[in-house]
């Protein structure tokens, strides 16, 4: 199975790094864009202003000399007494000296020169490279009512006419500069006529159309009336005014702009022209009161910025893709051993401790993990080996113990009632073994037809040694008892045999009794065993008195005593091992002598078998399921005595 541990970790790290970079980039780009936009707008405006001013200067360079020429000749005409015919020469001279001038007229008031009559206006113009001179006024050409004459005459100021196409010649655009002149009578002066100078405007078109701003920005000159003198759209030139164009476009904003222009103002405006938002800069041409305007789409202003931004975004996207790739590669490489570690851990779980670990050359945390892992593998391996051997050893021991226990339990008599033909007594015994092999024992047998020998004992300690010692004790008892009616003799012999070579100081507490079933005389020896309980038929109980005899198996020269007790009819004996009185509950509280007495008293009339069962149940009630730690052995004998006698 392929583990995706490092992939998900890598993708998480990549995700965090990318998110952070992206965030950083967006912030930087926004700041850059904002400031650049502002800067760019400023720059474009400055440029528009500069180029406009430059164009104005260029036009002024041509237009302002016209004013000067007119002024100079006005002074000559006014101050010299000139003959009427010499005026023709002057008009020729003006054209001849100034190539940019295409025509010149000096028109007088009627009858200024008496001899010339009503109309006198000498006029020179260029025609096919030559200068042609003639008299303008006639009855067909009442020049007094023409604009070029009438307007300066009435306003008494120089006047630039609206541009117009020259009807006579090469369809060139022309404007006429008209300046009134006077005749002096001492200090008085009176209007005498008008000097006009015609200027071709080809150069103006050239200058203005050469203006380029941004991609599609252009310049335009508008006359005082708002007529488009020059415009990239030829159809607008001389055909439309800004006002007619505004109403055609339904753009009141443009009309307002036109008014501002007429007032000779300068300024920036932005307006939507032809569906595109454009910026407009306008300023007057000082000598003619015309207006120069530059127009450029607003969007183009930020075009370079947009291009840079797109390029930046493109670069960043590529950068981020590269970053993703590199970071994921680095992280994957750094944590790739983890995958092998995970696999190894799985292998370890399956019990394979020699799985190969990744080869770590660095000296970082990964190396640390590697060493720890290796250490763990080795330790686990050794531990499991050890565990295997101990487990098998333990299993072997346990099965041997189980067999030992079976053999041990096989040694004690378990058939009840044991002596069905012996009416004087009844006897019952149980040995409830603890989990571990223990060393309790009980035994009973008839020495002859009227002597019952019975014993109960408890070997010190537990386990195989105790069970072996118990087996030895029981075997010795069976071999020593026949033909012997003294318990002291038997116990002393038993003690001698058991003490010999008992290096480990094992011992067995031992109670041995021999009951004469006919007389009820009980001879007994108690080698350090719990004193049995004597239960009288009236329900009273008493413990056998303590002897000072020590358990058997300790000192081979110890002399054990013997006591005698006369049993009455229906007296009961209750013998037990300390497994009974020392049965513990979970709080280590012992069952105790007192509880035993209480229980026995409560059931004193019961059969031996039932009495033992009741005590066993009472013990079970006391320990409340706490595990039994010691063998529970109980032996009870009831002495009925001679039934025949009793029935007499």
């Amino acid at each position, binding site marked *: 199975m392929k583990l995706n541990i490092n992939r998900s970790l890598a993708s998480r790290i990549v995700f965090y790094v990318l998110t952070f970079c992206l965030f950083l980039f967006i912030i930087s780009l926004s700041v850059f864009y904002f400031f650049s936009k502002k800067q760019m707008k400023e720059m474009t405006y400055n440029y528009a202003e500069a180029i406009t001013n430059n164009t104005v200067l260029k036009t002024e360079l041509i237009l302002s000399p016209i004013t000067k020429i007119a002024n100079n000749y006005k002074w000559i005409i006014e101050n010299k007494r000139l003959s009427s015919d010499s005026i023709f020469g002057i008009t020729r001279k003006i054209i001849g000296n100034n190539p940019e001038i295409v025509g010149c007229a000096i028109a007088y008031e009627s009858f200024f020169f008496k001899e010339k009559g009503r109309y006198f206006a000498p006029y020179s113009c260029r025609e096919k490279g030559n200068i042609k001179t003639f008299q303008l006024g006639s009855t067909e050409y009442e020049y007094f009512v023409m604009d070029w004459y009438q307007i300066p005459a009435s306003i008494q100021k120089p006047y630039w006419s609206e541009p117009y196409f020259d009807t006579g010649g090469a369809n060139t655009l022309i404007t006429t500069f008209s300046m009134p002149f006077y005749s002096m009578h001492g200090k008085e002066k009176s209007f005498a006529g008008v000097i006009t100078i015609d200027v071709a405007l080809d150069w103006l078109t050239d200058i203005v159309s050469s203006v380029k701003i941004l991609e599609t920005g252009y310049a335009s000159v508008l006359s005082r009336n708002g007529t488009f003198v020059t415009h990239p759209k030829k159809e607008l030139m001389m055909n439309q005014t800004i006002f007619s164009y505004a109403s055609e476009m339904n753009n009141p904003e443009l009309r307002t702009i036109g008014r501002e222009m007429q007032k000779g103002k300068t300024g920036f405006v932005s307006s939507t022209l032809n569906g595109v938002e454009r910026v407009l800069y306008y300023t007057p041409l000082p000598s003619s009161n015309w207006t120069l305007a530059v127009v450029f789409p607003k969007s183009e202003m930020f075009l370079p910025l947009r291009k840079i931004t797109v390029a930046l975004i493109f670069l960043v996207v590529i950068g981020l893709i590269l970053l993703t790739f590199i970071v994921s590669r680095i992280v994957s490489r750094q944590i790739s051993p983890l995958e092998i570690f995970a696999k190894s851990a799985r292998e370890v779980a399956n019990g394979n401790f020699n799985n190969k670990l990744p080869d770590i050359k660095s000296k970082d945390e990964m190396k640390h993990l590697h060493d720890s892992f290796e250490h763990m593998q080795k330790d686990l391996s050794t531990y499991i080996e050890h565990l295997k051997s101990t487990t098998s050893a333990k299993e072997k021991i346990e099965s041997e113990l189980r067999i030992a226990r079976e053999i041990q339990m096989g040694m004690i008599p378990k058939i009840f009632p044991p002596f069905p033909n012996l009416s004087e007594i009844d006897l019952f015994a149980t040995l409830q073994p603890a989990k571990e092999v223990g060393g309790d024992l009980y035994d009973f047998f008839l020495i002859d037809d009227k002597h019952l020998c019975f014993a109960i004992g408890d070997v010190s300690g537990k386990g195989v040694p105790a069970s072996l010692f118990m087996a030895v004790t029981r075997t010795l008892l069976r071999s020593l008892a026949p033909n012997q009616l003294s318990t002291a003799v038997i116990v002393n012999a038993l003690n001698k045999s058991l003490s010999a070579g008992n290096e480990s100081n094992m*011992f067995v507490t031992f109670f041995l009794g021999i009951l004469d079933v006919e007389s009820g005389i009980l001879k007994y020896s108690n080698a350090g065993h719990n004193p049995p309980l004597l239960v009288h038929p009236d329900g009273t109980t008493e413990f056998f008195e303590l002897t000072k005899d*020590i*358990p058997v198996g300790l000192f081979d020269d110890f002399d054990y005593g013997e006591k005698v007790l006369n049993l009455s009819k229906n007296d009961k004996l209750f013998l037990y091992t300390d497994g009974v009185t020392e049965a513990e509950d979970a709080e280590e509280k012992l069952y105790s002598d007192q509880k035993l007495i209480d229980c026995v008293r409560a059931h004193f009339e019961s059969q031996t078998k039932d009495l033992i069962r009741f005590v066993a149940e009472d013990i079970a009630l006391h320990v409340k399921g706490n595990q039994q730690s010691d063998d529970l052995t109980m032996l009870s004998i009831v002495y009925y005595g001679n039934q025949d006698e009793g029935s007499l």
Partner: protein
Amino acid sequence: MNITKEKIGEFLVLTLYGRVDTNNFNELEQAIGQVFEADEKKIVLNCSGLNYISSSGLRIFLTALKKVNAMHGTLHLCSMQPVIKEIFDISGFSTIFQIFDTQKEALE
């Protein structure tokens, strides 16, 4: 189980606390074994803190007694709680051990 050792005069006093049962009698066996290794011959076992003793524990007492007897030393027991005293009485061990009511008497 806890065992503390204290040298008082010629005697080495071992005070026992808790239980001595089948599961931990080895600890007592080792402690007493160390005492013999250190060549102490006069020993007092103060049983004031002892509240349970199994037959395995009694065996350790007995082994100690036999060793002491073999090297002509003394082993005194003292300050037994009634339950422990009863076990010694029932098993007849009271007759083979020298048992004193107080540690002071055991040290005399």
